[in-house]
């Protein structure tokens, strides 16, 4: 029978956990829950370890486990889309760096309000820098669905901005 290499698994966990923990945190928004999520994903990785060809495959596997488990937990816990309580406006108007800082802070809150799969698509696409095809593989859906999820998420983030914050957003968009 094939052997399980405990040293390689430990090296993988220690090497990749920080990044995976940050992804988990962005997905669930709570440190404790993110830790639980990461641990659960790593346990799943341990179970699958003999079938994972290399570290790259293992990281992809763990990331997928983090995302699908998070979505499942959301579903199980009755998670639902949370409305953003009120528009957030950057101030003072015209102070672009301050605007951007406030808008970034607002975006962090707005991200938490996205529906689970939208949020996962945004985190994978723009934080983990995965391609659309890679995001589709993680989420188990088509590339078209990923594009739609990301598009809808971005629209939602933008439309819940107040006018000034939206202007900041649009300036960023224009620059980007």
């Amino acid at each position: 029978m094939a052997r399980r290499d405990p040293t390689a698994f430990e090296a993988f966990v220690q090497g990749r956990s920080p990044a995976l923990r940050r992804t988990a945190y962005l997905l669930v928004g709570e440190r404790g829950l993110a830790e639980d999520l990461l641990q659960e994903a790593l346990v799943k990785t341990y179970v699958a370890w003999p079938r994972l060809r290399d570290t790259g495959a293992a990281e992809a596997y763990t990331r997928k486990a983090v995302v699908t488990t998070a979505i499942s937990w959301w579903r199980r816990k009755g998670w639902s889309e949370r409305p953003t309580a009120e528009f957030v406006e950057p101030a003072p108007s015209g102070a672009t760096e301050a605007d951007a800082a406030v808008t970034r802070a607002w975006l962090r809150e707005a991200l938490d309000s996205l529906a689970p799969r939208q949020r996962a698509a945004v985190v994978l696409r723009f934080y983990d820098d995965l391609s659309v095809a890679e995001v589709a593989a993680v989420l188990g859906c088509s590339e078209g669905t990923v594009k739609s999820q990301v598009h809808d998420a971005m629209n939602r983030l933008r439309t819940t901005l107040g006018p000034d914050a939206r202007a900041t957003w649009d300036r960023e968009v224009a620059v980007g």
Partner: protein
Amino acid sequence: MTELLRAAMREHAADVDHEPTDVATIVAAGRRRVRGRRIAAGVAAAAATGIVAAGVAVLAPSGGDTPVATGGIDFSTLEPSWAVGEVIHYGRDTIEADEPVRSYVLSARGAVYADATGTVRLTTGAGDRTVGRVDPDAAILRADRGGDMAAWVDVSADAPALAVLDTSTGRLVRRVPVSMPAAGPSDNEFEEVLVFAVDGDAVLWLDDDGVSLLDVATGEATVLDPGGDRWSIAGARAGVVLHDGLVLTADRPEGEGGDRLFVSKVSELASGDYALVVRPTTIETYASYGALDPTGERVTLEDEDAYTVFSTSTGAQVAGALDLPGFSVGYDWLADDRTVVMSLPEVGEDSDASRIDIVVCTVPESVCTTYAEGVVGFNGDDSSGFALPIGEFLD
């Protein structure tokens, strides 16, 4: 266009502390899951996700059940079952076992259970009969829910063997020597011998030769997967096998990770030629355990601890009750398209508040009703006394 969003997420993610990950804890949980079924580790898993505290505490049994009359129970009429201490509940009947039940399984003829010492007994409700011994640390038993056969890795003698019991007669009908892994300083959880499933005359098990199938009628054993580390079986019934990671196709020369299960036929696997299984149904799940219905057409999975039912023909989810509590796991089937579900409706460190219900759900309507309320409770310091007919003890 997305730089602002990227920056926001980077700032947000930077809030996370860079704590070292406890690899030992992960490995311990992984070992448990490799060897066993997730449902058996369900309490610990639920605790890990903040659903329950930890541990199982025996509470007073629910009222209303009656001791079984002398002469036994008709186990072919499918009823919800669970055990607390030495009492096995079967529908509204109860069986008083000789010893507290650590793990048990059901055939159409009786219950086969292991006690804390590993002694295996057959009970039909009209007395117990000692039939073998298992490793008490695992206490893994398997049986054909709709048939007569039960199996386990017997350690009664010096050399462990695959033992097959005909529960209709109480006699061991097969005892097959197993290949034990060579002793050595390795860390391979697959280096053990265990029985995956019993389906009619087919017994699927793992030893050092790989995954094998025993035809109980003929005594012939066929090695299905010499590299048994790539394959584990989550369930088998009515000729349908639910498994993971099998080497299947030319374009998928290596086994998949554990994020899906495949559905095959026993008849296909028995050839030993995986190429015959060209396009298996795939079910997207991390579940390590599935309870197949009597026809093998549907399976209830512990999919992320939530109750779900999938079609083995299409791989699509066909039932699941989102209104059930967070930790709800289907573990058995009744007649008339109904499943039996273990459900934790309350959460907390107080065992009086956190108690398991046995729930029956219709498929595909997913209408669930409580069959037995508060059969056992949770607190933080005990993990004994409660068992489900899944052939493993609960953490």
